[in-house]
Each structure stands twice: as structure tokens, then as C-alpha cells.
């Protein structure tokens, strides 16, 4: 069985190649949707089974898969190596499992699309890249996956590239990711510099990195890795691409922009946590940035009318929660939230896809994603509505659904991080507030979509999606319900907290985390109060919002607007981040490009090239006269050359 593990990596690549090339070459293959869908799903399903086998038979020793030496130069030797340890396996379960469900869902969702084969080829390629990212044994293979998921994200956001806006959204995502990737590259250089001072071979493997003391550059490495993570995982300042990335097909939003790719930054930081442990300043930066991101995104989500935009900002906000956990040194908690979030957010996105699918088929609605034209859909789409509700309750933190446990653990980590009233206590309050906002906007979007009066033109009724789309919804909803029990609070008993004490503890050793636990242990009463408070806040908020919206319907939005007053405009304008970047970065660069660079282009770059070509042409005009075409002239010149050579040989 162990010898089959390379297939985890290779099968998705094979699937991408077969489907992509087959679709390019053969129109008959292109039309065969069933074959393409089954093939693509199998190419993720088999790796999922393999990962599951490895997961359940895992013996505590990490499994290494060494394929071949990739590059070798000096004391650097990069191997195409993968590792299956607790963290990789958990991420692998999420990626291949959720990935498989979303492949299944896409068979129904993408039915009849022109680029059906292309979509599945990209999707398989994405799984390949993501597997590289999470299973890579060294930083370079990880980076290959890192870039690969960025590429696939670009390809899939711009999947319907004939729409200019979608193509631009893809470009925006790519450029924002490139900024983070650049930071990642510099971090890699610094790491290599740090490791290279030792004489032995450098393989840039994670085990090598986390056991090395980088001295003064630790801070910079940690900061750069975090900046890289803000790019991929959509944190301030680079989060602006994620809401726009909703231009892609909805399964893509669920897979890439909610469950897997956007969590790669969290994975990376958890993987390299000893470096962050050694630089508390960076942890403080992370926690502040994360809290800002979470609260700003939550406020923005309240004022959005596009169902996918709400979910996108919700994702940004939840990613902020994960980074808050990282910032508190609770890496395991962050991974726990990655897992639960993957379940309920994928379910939410797929549910929204199901809704959009239904609205699109009605043809009477201008924008199939606008929640103002929905309402009362649960009657027509019971499966979608119920699963959406379950996930909404999960993300809102209703006890005992999965979101409650992971979010509560994050908040507890923040609260117990230090003694007395310090930065982390402020962050804790912000986190609590954000959790309340989360419950509010998620209940709002669910109420406006599935409950209340029907606001769509009613000559044609929406219909439930086919089973191939609802089955993944139910599976994900079930996971969203039970996922939290993998990480029950420690105060209920350490052995009940499987994810931390049974599993990830072996790869992630965090001093901060220990301190947090000891703190919490010493103050069990406070902890009980905190848990009860957060559970109560969630329940009350959901209850209040549900009543508020069921009473007022769409008019409730107006009341919210009045409540926030002038601030609502800022929320609706997404806090003007895009405009700010437009003015401060893109605008000046454009000006520079149009005025200075264009001038340089014309007179310096082109000038040099044209000057050279004109000079050569002029010289040619002079010397072409030698080519008289007269044989006797040529012979004369040849003879002259012979005589000169002879003279040189004899007298020289």
C-alpha cells in the first residue's frame, strides 16, 4: 500500500493531462460529460481513499515519499519529496475529501457548459498543485504547489473569460497573489542563506528549517512568510482579490476560495511555527492584522446583496479568525478551524451555487446572485435550504455544531494568551464582536434567500438541484454538524480533544499553546463563563436576526442601514480598499507608465533598438558596394588576401 502513495500526487496530474489533452484533441471526448466527470472525480477519489488509508493506519512515524532529485547546485539539493505526517494527512483529508465532493457536485453544476472538460482539467490540476503544497516535504515543492494553486485559481476565476469583468478579476487575483509570492521567494532566499551557513547539504526541507536557529533573520523570515500568507489567504492588505474571485464558477469558490487554497497560508505558518514561536513581534502583527481583517470583512458582509459576495467576505472574516489563532500561537486551533470552516463554508458555497443554478434557470431574474430577488426558496429547494441553514448555524457558532467549538477555542486562546489586560484581550473583544456580526450577516443572508416572501417573478418556480449536487451538500452539512467533536474543549478532558492531543500535538509543539492551556486550566470558572457567554451571544444573535428579518423581510436591510447611519455607506463600499489601492498604487503606477515609462520606451528602449538597426543598415549600404557581382573583382580581392596571408606567413 505504501508504494501506492505517490499516486496521491500523480493521479490528479494524470487526470488533468488526460482530460485537458483529450478534450483538446477529440471533440467526441469533449462532449462525453459523463466520462469526463467520472474520470475527474475518480482521479481525486482514489487519492482520497489512499490518504484515508494512510490516515487511519498512521503509526506515528511520518511517511516519506521520495520521487527523484529535482535540482542540485553547490550545497543545495532539492528533492521531489513528499511527507505524510499528522498535519499533512489532516490537510490531505480535507483537500481530497472536500475536493472529491466538489468534483461530484460540479458534474451537475457545470452540466452543458462549453468548457466542461477544461473545467475538470483545471480542477484536477488544482488538486495536484494543492497536494504538492500540503504534502511537499521541502519549501521548494511546497512553493511549486503554492504557485500552482495560484495559477489554477487564476484559470478558474477567469473561466468564463469572455466576460471582461471576470477576466479582470482573475488578473487581480493573480497580481495580488504575486505580491505575496514575491515575499515568499525572499523568505526562501533568507532561509537558504540561514541554512547555507552550515557546511552540509541544504535540502530546504521543513524538518531542516524548523530545527534551525535563524538568529536575527528570524523576524524577517516570519514576517515575509506572513506577508506571503496574506496574499494566498486573503488578509489585509492583500485580501481585495478574494471577493472579486467570486466571478469564477461557484464550485471553484467553494473548493479554492473557501475550503482549500485560501487556507494554505495558515497551513504554511502552522508548518513553520517554530520560526513564529521565536518572533513574538510577528505574532502580535499577525493577530492585529487578522482582527482588523475579520471585523472589516464582517462589517462589509452585512451590507452586500450578492449572495456569493457575502460568503466571500465571510470567508475573509473566518480566515481572519484562523490568523488570530495563529497570532496567539494556537496553531492547532487554527488548523481545527481550517477543517470546520472547510466543511461549513464549502457547504454554504455549494448551497449558494445550487440557488444560483436554480435562479439562472428561471431566466426572468437579471442577476441570479442578488438575494433581493430571492426569498422563500426553502419551499422549492428543501435539501439546499436545510443544509444551508445547518451550515449557517455552524458558522454562527451555535452549540454543538462544529463552528462553535473551533471558534470558541480561538477566542479562548486569545483570552488566555497573557495575564492582565493587554493587546490580546482587546483582540478577544474584537473577535467576540466579529463572531456576533458573523451570526448576524449569515442569518440575514439565509433568511433573505430561503425564508420570507418570494420576491422573484413568480410565473416560473425554481426547482431543487439534481441529486448529484445535493448529496455533497448533505455530506458536508453532516460534517459541519459533527466536525466539532474532533476538537472538544480541553477542559472537558484532554483525551476528548482529539485533534490537538491525539493528533497534531506530535507535529506542532507550541509554548504559547501550552501556556494558554495552563492558564485556562488555572481559571476554569472564567473559561466556563466565556464558553457560556459566546454560546449565548451566538444563539441570541441568530434568534434576534431571524425574528428581525422574518418580521420585516427586505425592509430589515433599510433598518440596518438607518442603524449604522453614515457608516453603512463605508460598509457597502467595502471600506474603499479598492479605491484606496487605485489611488495610491495603481493610479501612480499607471501615471508613471503612461508618462515616464512610455517616454523611456519610445526614446530609450526603442531608440536603442532602432538606432542599432539603422546603424547596421547604413553600414550595410556602404559595404554592399563590395558585392559588385563581378567575378574578376572577387578574384582580385581573394588574391589580395592570399598575398597578404603569404606575406604574413613569410615575414611575420
Amino acid at each position, binding site marked *: 500500500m505504501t508504494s501506492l502513495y505517490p499516486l496521491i500526487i500523480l493521479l490528479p496530474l494524470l487526470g488533468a493531462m488526460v482530460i485537458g489533452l483529450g478534450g483538446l484533441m477529440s471533440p467526441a471526448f469533449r462532449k462525453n460529460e459523463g466520462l469526463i466527470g467520472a474520470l475527474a472525480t475518480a482521479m481525486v477519489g482514489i487519492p482520497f481513499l489512499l490518504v484515508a488509508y494512510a490516515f487511519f493506519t498512521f503509526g506515528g512515524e511520518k511517511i516519506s515519499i521520495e520521487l527523484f532529485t529535482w535540482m542540485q547546485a553547490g550545497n543545495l539539493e532539492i528533492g521531489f519529496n513528499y511527507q505524510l505526517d499528522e498535519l499533512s494527512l489532516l490537510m490531505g483529508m480535507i483537500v481530497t475529501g472536500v475536493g472529491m465532493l466538489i468534483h461530484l457536485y460540479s458534474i451537475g453544476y457545470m452540466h452543458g457548459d462549453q468548457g466542461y472538460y477544461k473545467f475538470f482539467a483545471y480542477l484536477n490540476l488544482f488538486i495536484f498543485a494543492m497536494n504538492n503544497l500540503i504534502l511537499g516535504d521541502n519549501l521548494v515543492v511546497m512553493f511549486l504547489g503554492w504557485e500552482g494553486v495560484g495559477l489554477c485559481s487564476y484559470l478558474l476565476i477567469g473561466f468564463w473569460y469572455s466576460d471582461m469583468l471576470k477576466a479582470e478579476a482573475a488578473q487581480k487575483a493573480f497580481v495580488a497573489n504575486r505580491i505575496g509570492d514575491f515575499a515568499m521567494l525572499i523568505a526562501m532566499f533568507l532561509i537558504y542563506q540561514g541554512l547555507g551557513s552550515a557546511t552540509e547539504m541544504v535540502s530546504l526541507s521543513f524538518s531542516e528549517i524548523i530545527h534551525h536557529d535563524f538568529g536575527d533573520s528570524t523576524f524577517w523570515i516570519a514576517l515575509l512568510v506572513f506577508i506571503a500568507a496574506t496574499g494566498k489567504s486573503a488578509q489585509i492588505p492583500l485580501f481585495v482579490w478574494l471577493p472579486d474571485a467570486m466571478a469564477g464558477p461557484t464550485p471553484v469558490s467553494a473548493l479554492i476560495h473557501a475550503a482549500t487554497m485560501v487556507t494554505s497560508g495558515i497551513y504554511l505558518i502552522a508548518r513553520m511555527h517554530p520560526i513564529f514561536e521565536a518572533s513574538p513581534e510577528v505574532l502580535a502583527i499577525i493577530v492585529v492584522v487578522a482582527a482588523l481583517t475579520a471585523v472589516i470583512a464582517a462589517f462589509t458582509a452585512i451590507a452586500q446583496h450578492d449572495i456569493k459576495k457575502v460568503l466571500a467576505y465571510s470567508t475573509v472574516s473566518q480566515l481572519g479568525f484562523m490568523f488570530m489563532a495563529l497570532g496567539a500561537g494556537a496553531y492547532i486551533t487554527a488548523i481545527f478551524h481550517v477543517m470546520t470552516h472547510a466543511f461549513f463554508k464549502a457547504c454554504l458555497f455549494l448551497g449558494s451555487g445550487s440557488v444560483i443554478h436554480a435562479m439562472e434557470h428561471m431566466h426572468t431574474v437579471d442577476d441570479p446572485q442578488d438575494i433581493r430577488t430571492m426569498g422563500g426558496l426553502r419551499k422549492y429547494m428543501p435539501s439546499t435550504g436545510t443544509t444551508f441553514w445547518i451550515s449557517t448555524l455552524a458558522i454562527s457558532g451555535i452549540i454543538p455544531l462544529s463552528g462553535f467549538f473551533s471558534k470558541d477555542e480561538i477566542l479562548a486562546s486569545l483570552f488566555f494568551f497573557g495575564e492582565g489586560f493587554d493587546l490580546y484581550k482587546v483582540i478577544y473583544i474584537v473577535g467576540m464582536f466579529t463572531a456576533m456580526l458573523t451570526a448576524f450577516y449569515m442569518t440575514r443572508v439565509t433568511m433573505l434567500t430561503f425564508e420570507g416572501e418570494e420576491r422573484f417573478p413568480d410565473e416560473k418556480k425554481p426547482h431543487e438541484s439534481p441529486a448529484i449536487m445535493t448529496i455533497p451538500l448533505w455530506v458536508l452539512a453532516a460534517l459541519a454538524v459533527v466536525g466539532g467533536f474532533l476538537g472538544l474543549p480541553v477542559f472537558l478532558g484532554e483525551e476528548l480533544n482529539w485533534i490537538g492531543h491525539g493528533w497534531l500535538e506530535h507535529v506542532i509543539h507550541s509554548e504559547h499553546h501550552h501556556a494558554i492551556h495552563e492558564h485556562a486550566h488555572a481559571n476554569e470558572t472564567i473559561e466556563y463563563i466565556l464558553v457560556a457567554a459566546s454560546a449565548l451571544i451566538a444563539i441570541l444573535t441568530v434568534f434576534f436576526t431571524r425574528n428581525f428579518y422574518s418580521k420585516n423581510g427586505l425592509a430589515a436591510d433599510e433598518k440596518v442601514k438607518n442603524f449604522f447611519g453614515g457608516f453603512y455607506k463605508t460598509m457597502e463600499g467595502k471600506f474603499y480598499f479598492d479605491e484606496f489601492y487605485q489611488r495610491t498604487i495603481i493610479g501612480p503606477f499607471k501615471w508613471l507608465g503612461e508618462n515616464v515609462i512610455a517616454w523611456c520606451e519610445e526614446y530609450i528602449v526603442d531608440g536603442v533598438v532602432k538606432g542599432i538597426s539603422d546603424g547596421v543598415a547604413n553600414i550595410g549600404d556602404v559595404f*554592399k*558596394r563590395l*558585392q*559588385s*557581382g*563581378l*567575378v*574578376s573583382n572577387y*578574384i*582580385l580581392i581573394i*588574391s589580395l588576401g592570399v598575398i597578404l596571408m603569404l606575406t604574413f606567413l613569410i615575414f611575420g
Partner: protein
Amino acid sequence: MEFLTPNAYTYLSVAIVMFALGAIGVMTRRNGIIVFMCIELMLNAVNLSLITFSKMHAVAGAEGVPHPGANGSMLVFFVMCVAAAEAVVGLSIIIALFRNRLDIDINNVNIFKW
């Protein structure tokens, strides 16, 4: 009259003068056939020098070599054969040229001019 007795140097001098005259002819004449004949003259001059060297080495002799200087003579033989082949092809080219242009003045043939 001792200085008139031919030695290798006198033979070579004759060959050199003939070669130079052939080269001058190639460079100055315009009639294609005469240019061609000048080339034949140059070849013959070279042949003469080869025979001279051949004889020179034969007279000097060499240990264990059955026919010293034989290579020179054999080379002349092959040069003659190649020259014959070359003359045939060259003359047919001249005929083809004449047929196209009714003129074999090589100074009028300048299709390779820029």
C-alpha cells in the same frame, strides 16, 4: 655556364612565373573561355612544381621507401583527371551561359550584385 644548369629552383621559378601569369590572366581577361584557360594554365604550373618536387625527392632518396617522390607524380595524374572533368563541366556552363545571354563577357554577368 654553370649557373644555367637547371636545378629545382629554376624549375620552380618557371612554375611560379607561369602560375602568376595565369592568375593575372584570370584577374584581367573578360572572355569567359580565356579565363577558364588561364585556370588550366595555373593548374599546369602547379603540376610542374609537383613533378619537380617528385624528382627532387627521388634524387635525394629515402631509407626504406621503394619509390621516393612517387606521391607527387600520382597527384599530378589525379589533378589531370580532375582538370579534365572540370573542363567539361566548365565549358558546358559556358555554353549554357552563352545560350541564355549570347555573351560570355564575365563582366556583364553580375546577377549577384546587391
